[in-house]
């Protein structure tokens, strides 16, 4: 799976960073920054949770061929 972040939509609440700081970070202006687009294992699980939690709809998940 792959994560996409729409930086035009992000409202900088930081829910994603709180969920997994190894996948998500914030620029100094508060806008989301992906550390990796392809989290694996536990990080993948938490990234899914972050997509659910994101209040602005800035995060999306794309399932890719070969995903199990």
């Amino acid at each position, binding site marked *: 799976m792959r994560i996409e972040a729409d930086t035009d*939509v992000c*409202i*900088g*609440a*930081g*829910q994603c*960073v*709180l*969920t997994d*700081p190894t996948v998500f970070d*914030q*620029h*100094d*202006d*508060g*806008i989301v920054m992906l550390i990796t687009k392809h989290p694996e294992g536990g990080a993948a699980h938490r990234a899914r*949770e972050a997509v*659910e*939690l994101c*209040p*602005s*709809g800035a995060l999306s998940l794309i399932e890719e061929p070969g995903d199990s």
Partner: protein
Amino acid sequence: MTETASTTTPGISSTTTSGPASGEVTDAEFPLERGCPFSTPTEYEQIREHSPLAKVRLTTGREAWWIAGHELGRAVLADRRFSSDRRRDNFPFVSTDPETRKQLQDQPTSMIGMDGAEHAQARRALMGEFTVRRMAGLRPRIQQIVDQHIDEMLSSDQRTADLVEALSLPVPSLVICELLGVPYADHDFFQARSGPLIRHTTPTEVRLRIQKELNTYLGALIDRKVTDPTDDLLSRQIAKHHAAGTFDRTSLVSMAFLLLIAGHETTANMISLGVVGLLQHPDQLAMIKEDPEKTPPAVEELLRYFTIADTVTARVATEDVQLGDTTINAGDGVVISGLAADHDPTVFTDPDRLDLERGARHHVAFGFGPHQCIGQTLARMELQIVFDTLFRRIPTLRLAAPLDDIPFKSDAFVYGAERLPVAW
């Protein structure tokens, strides 16, 4: 994300019907009083089982849609066809008195009442001040503030205190001082006013006077930081707006005032209620005393359980919106009840049980959608530090009055305790 087609409205099963008389299921007047902190109004359940939305009568005499389901609530809060502009007719709970309405209409709106691009611009200008990283930098100072207040409690011979006065009110007030960059010498001035400002027992004329004094103070503070910038939110905002050519003293004062109002009473009430919740569940409290790693999920659960800003998340429909079988007409007021959403049994198993290990973060205690609380990371950190420190340093803390005798605020929009007698 913003358009919700009638057939796919989240949170409404296609078989649900809205029932007769545009879904009126109760003749109670809203907002309803909470009997005690450990119960939610039964009407919420009625509405949820019914639709999960219903037209209800408000105490102002108007009507509004009350949304009691979690999924539908989140969908509406994320839907830009609903406006946050409190100056609109029919905005729930805003006074119908023409004089008050005029005053409101004449005031500049702050971020919380803006919509769309205007809101995005205001929020983006401030967002960088609340990043997870920046908030973590405040941690040592918050710890110090909390420790000082607990020192003071412990230095009294009486071994009793009103926790609201001793801890709940001063801590968030001083944290906002820190954030804005209010100099140490002015802390007493600031605190002497911000406490009474948010207390509902303070007479309106006193509150208005204090509001004016604080606005004057904040204006002067901004002037000082224009000439003599320091390392704080206000100075950075001034520099940013100067660089962009958007500096406007009035809107900066109103932003600072919004932060004070939005971040003070909410956090204070969560401190008091959190302590009540923890003390009433001693076995669960023992768990977090033993392992501070358990405090963050416990804070989430306390936020969900009490959802103190139940009705702050109100909106007005700007066009006709179809939610399942129900049509919300343009101009209708809508209240997305956070407390009802956070006790929705389809989302939280056994929702009326306080379970500190639940750790669910998809509650709406901080709202949802573009207005979701900008101060949430700060609030979480304050609460974690307070609960950890308070119960570590005063392990014998207990309520000094039966629960029934504690004055919980029944009239307030933000639920909390007026006083909280504790002993150790």
